[in-house]
């Protein structure tokens, strides 16, 4: 049998998270689970299927192109995946908000207990996953026949792009009419995406206001960094929700993470402690963030940020 990977995309381009999940799928394939196929379900999304042919380790791309998949509504996506599932031993998706929305619905319809956000594959039925905001790592063995898995993207490298898969158009399912898309308000930014950026600079409650939060921009510009935020900063309205790094926001693991005015709550650290190098700038020398920081600076961020922007020129 084989593995089915659910591609995430915006009907034009593939989201990078798909590539990390592809690596996990290939690892699982190497455990004797067979070939990896990718499902591209969307509307007018042939360009995504084309792009998917290049993912390393993918043999076949199933293209389901129909209006009811345009916005990846779980109520329409899940029955399509369930229909395909009979030919697969494992179904994998990145643990993005879209993957988290759709896959448990698939799992329930197939009577399978999903394994969420795996960080390591031990064998074809045994996986590691973080629990308690990453303060413990559980090794779990799935007793179900099929494996339904979401993948923590920071734990797997992105797959390369010298693949040569083939595209097969498949028949599409119904629009079940349970839900419909109304609108979205996506944050427009020329900066790298938070989950795939090499450098991230994040602000916390210490930034003080939405106005002050913009002080991060100058440093981010110099470093080509993505901008993140702690939950406290988002709750206070300093930054939009999609900036949030933490247990319930985005999990990131860049080369360099600069935490500015962030005290280091358990749930924030859960989202960034796998970063390669962590810098903390905080005027409170007792802030827990310093316990995980490679380089700490006890100072007023309002002095440091302009100086840092200047030093990086």
């Amino acid at each position, binding site marked *: 049998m084989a593995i089915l990977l659910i591609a995430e995309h915006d009907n034009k381009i593939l989201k990078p998270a798909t590539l990390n999940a592809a690596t996990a799928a290939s690892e699982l394939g190497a455990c004797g689970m067979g070939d990896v196929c990718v499902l591209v379900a969307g509307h007018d999304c042939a360009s995504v299927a084309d792009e998917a042919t290049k993912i390393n380790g993918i043999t076949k791309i199933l293209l389901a192109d129909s209006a009811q998949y345009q916005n990846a509504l779980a109520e329409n996506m899940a029955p399509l995946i369930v229909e395909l599932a009979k030919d697969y031993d494992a179904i994998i998706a990145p643990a993005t908000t879209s993957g988290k*929305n759709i896959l448990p619905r698939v799992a329930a319809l197939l009577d399978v207990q999903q394994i969420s956000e795996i960080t390591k594959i031990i064998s074809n039925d045994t996986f590691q996953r973080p629990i308690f905001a990453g303060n413990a790592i559980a090794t779990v063995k799935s007793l179900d026949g099929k494996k339904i898995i979401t993948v923590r993207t920071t734990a797997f490298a992105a797959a390369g792009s010298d693949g040569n898969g083939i595209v097969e158009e498949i028949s599409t399912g119904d629009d079940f009419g349970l839900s419909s*898309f109304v609108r979205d308000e996506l*944050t427009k930014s020329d900066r790298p995406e938070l989950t795939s950026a090499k450098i991230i600079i994040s602000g916390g409650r210490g930034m003080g206001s939405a106005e002050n939060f913009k002080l991060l921009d100058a440093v981010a510009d110099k470093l080509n960094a993505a901008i993140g935020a702690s939950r406290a900063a988002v709750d206070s309205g300093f930054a939009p929700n999609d900036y949030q790094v933490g247990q319930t926001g985005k999990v990131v693991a860049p080369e360099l993470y600069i935490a500015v005015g962030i005290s280091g709550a358990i749930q924030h650290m859960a989202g960034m402690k796998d970063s390669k190098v962590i810098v903390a700038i905080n005027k409170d020398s007792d802030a827990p963030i310093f316990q995980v920081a490679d380089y*700490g600076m006890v100072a007023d961020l309002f002095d440091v940020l302009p100086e840092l922007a200047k030093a990086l020129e």
Partner: protein
Amino acid sequence: MKALVAIKRVIDFNVKIRVKADGSGVETENVKMSMNPFDEIAAEEAIRLKEAGVVDEIIAVSIGNAAAQDVIRTALAMGADRGILVQSENEVEPLAVAKILKFVVGRENPGIVILGKQAIDDDANQTGQMLSALLGWAQGTFASKVEIVDGGARAQVTREIDGGLETISLKMPAVITTDLRLNEPRYASLPNIMKAKKKPIDTISVSDTGVDASPRLEIIKVEEPPQRTAGIKVDSVAALVEKLKNEAGVI
């Protein structure tokens, strides 16, 4: 319409958890337990819908041992009308929880079910989606705004997604899972805590629901993650930039 709110008793979010020495799990003896924070948001949202006249009765349901009554009492003190405890001595996995909740939905016939998007212990983020699938209902996950429109026929739900916000329209009845910014849960006042003691809690067992809750995931071991250690302090921006360039090599 009735609202059903599902709540879980978990280790309090402020507690630094300890992994058991034998690797079998996490220490829960003598540890402060509370309602899962996302479930508090779920209870609050149901109460606001009742205050807005959309919902007329709120039922709080929890699955767990007898101590799970505590979180039901908390929900009752916040403003839920009655509770249901589905008693289980064992951990119940999300799929089985969803099946048990489906049984409760069949008995109570709510027009809306509101759950936290994830429990902060197993971090699974599955139960609401699974319940919605088993019921064949629409799902509005990671909600930051919920409006019941068209005279109760539809829900308009704004969701927190990776790129920002998305608004979808759901046919009712529907399952909603809550994200952080949906509301700020109220504290129960002392008079309401006293009143909650008189509100009814119906206790049933998992076997009453007919659900096979035997685990599908075997826990092989639970261990501490690799620990990071504190590095050094630098005393100037110049020193920081020098370290990042020449020592860490990341800029």
